[in-house]
């Protein structure tokens, strides 16, 4: 007779896929790590679990663990549903990106900070006026947590074999661009950018984009909410961070493609901008 154990956890649903006749596999991020759970019969509208395990909702689940089989969700109760993410394509895509990065950068290990970061980012995404700013803030904190904290405050360049390490204080009036160097893990001062070998990986970084990266890294989101975040900076950061993250992940985040296609279709539908 197989051993059966019951346990209860709270988590955020980051992934789902159909399984069997009317079941779903649920990827649940909890403070104690990531779980892949089987929710039986959940696709039937009258299932008591239906609606309690939608993407990005925070739910309390009772799990029965049977040796050598799936951990099965025997009860689920939703705590936060986040309808603002479900009904909005842009917020929905950003939320999928938040989930994808968390699943790609981390394995199954317990990480309470990661859980709190993802959960609070999803809450911000649902309510914030500019979801693109929430995503930029999240990227910096997730990279730090995953051990890939970019160095945006000091130049990571080398000149004549010596590390530069110049402290960077970008000003809006700066004449020359800075750089982002994923391989060296951070920013380049204008001199190192100009002196360096041109590389497919290095991106130019405007003074405004660099000061935003420093702020995202050093501040809480609430401290940034009142500053103007121009859409030009948002677009630049999207491009720079895509390159940075793809390099360290050795993988192009998939959800970003939907983001790019969406931005593209918005650009097409508003030619005046």
């Amino acid at each position, binding site marked *: 007779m197989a051993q059966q154990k019951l346990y209860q956890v709270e988590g955020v649903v980051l*992934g*789902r*896929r*159909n*399984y*069997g*006749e*009317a079941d779903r596999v649920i990827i649940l991020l909890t403070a104690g790590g990531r779980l892949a759970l089987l929710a039986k019969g*959940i*696709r*039937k*509208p*009258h*299932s008591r*679990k*239906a*609606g*309690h*395990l*939608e*993407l*990005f909702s925070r739910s309390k689940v009772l799990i029965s663990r049977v040796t050598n089989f799936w951990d099965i969700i025997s009860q689920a109760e939703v705590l936060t549903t986040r309808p603002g993410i*479900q*009904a*909005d*394509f842009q917020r*929905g*895509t950003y939320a*999928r990106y938040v*989930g*994808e990065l968390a699943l790609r950068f981390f394995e199954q290990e317990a990480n309470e900070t990661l859980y709190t970061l993802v959960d609070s980012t999803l809450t911000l995404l649902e309510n914030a006026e500019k979801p693109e700013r929430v995503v930029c803030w999240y990227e910096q904190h997730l990279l730090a947590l995953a051990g890939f904290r970019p160095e945006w405050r000091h130049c990571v360049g080398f000149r004549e074999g010596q590390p530069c390490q110049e402290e960077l204080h970008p000003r809006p009036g700066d004449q020359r661009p800075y750089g982002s160097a994923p391989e060296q893990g951070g920013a380049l001062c204008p001199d190192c950018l100009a002196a360096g070998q041109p590389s497919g990986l290095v991106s130019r970084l405007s003074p405004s984009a660099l000061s935003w990266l420093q702020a995202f890294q050093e501040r809480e989101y609430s401290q940034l909410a009142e500053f103007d975040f121009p859409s030009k900076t948002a677009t630049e950061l999207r491009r720079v961070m895509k390159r940075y993250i793809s390099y360290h992940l050795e993988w192009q985040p*998939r*959800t970003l*493609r*939907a983001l790019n*296609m*969406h931005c593209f*279709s*918005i650009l097409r*539908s508003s030619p005046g901008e």
Partner: protein
Amino acid sequence: MKNVAIPPAVTRLIETFSELPGIGPKTASRLTFYHLRGKSELALSLAKELQNLVEKTRFCSICYNVTEEDPCPICSDESRDKKVLCVVAEPLDLLALERTEQYTGSYHVLHGALAPLEGIFAEDLRIKELEARLRKGGVEEVILATNPTSEGDYTAAYLLTRLKPLGVRITRLGRGLPMGGDLEYADAVTLTRALEARQEL
């Protein structure tokens, strides 16, 4: 592990059955041995039906439902309202709506829902074709009848941003449907109510 006691024809069928959605190795073996012991007529007719399915069915060139004749019976039915278009994710959802015997408009089958994490993007669904159909004119209302789930809502939200500029009325199935369940399992009464309670987007 090679088992010489089992003929290759049997192993091959078990392997083929287990490639079907929702069928694990245990069920696959059970189905195989059923056919081995059961009536040979059933096995042969099953083989023939499957062959017919592959050879005779195709997608309707208007609505992309599966059909034996093109256009499909619904698209060529003069009595169906061509001004109302119901967009569903799968042919099974269309079947569920037909079971209500209340809906008299036409359909468009997307063949999936948006799931960028699983690698399913807008270009993988029949959205371009839907857009082209609407551009041709004649359609006054599009009912988005994707599942009342995260995936279905996300697909509907995308369709809304993409179709809104075309100037047609866009509605979504009413919330008589409980969140989280799939359309294909909904009963006819609930579905009828959801159709009646559809809301403008």
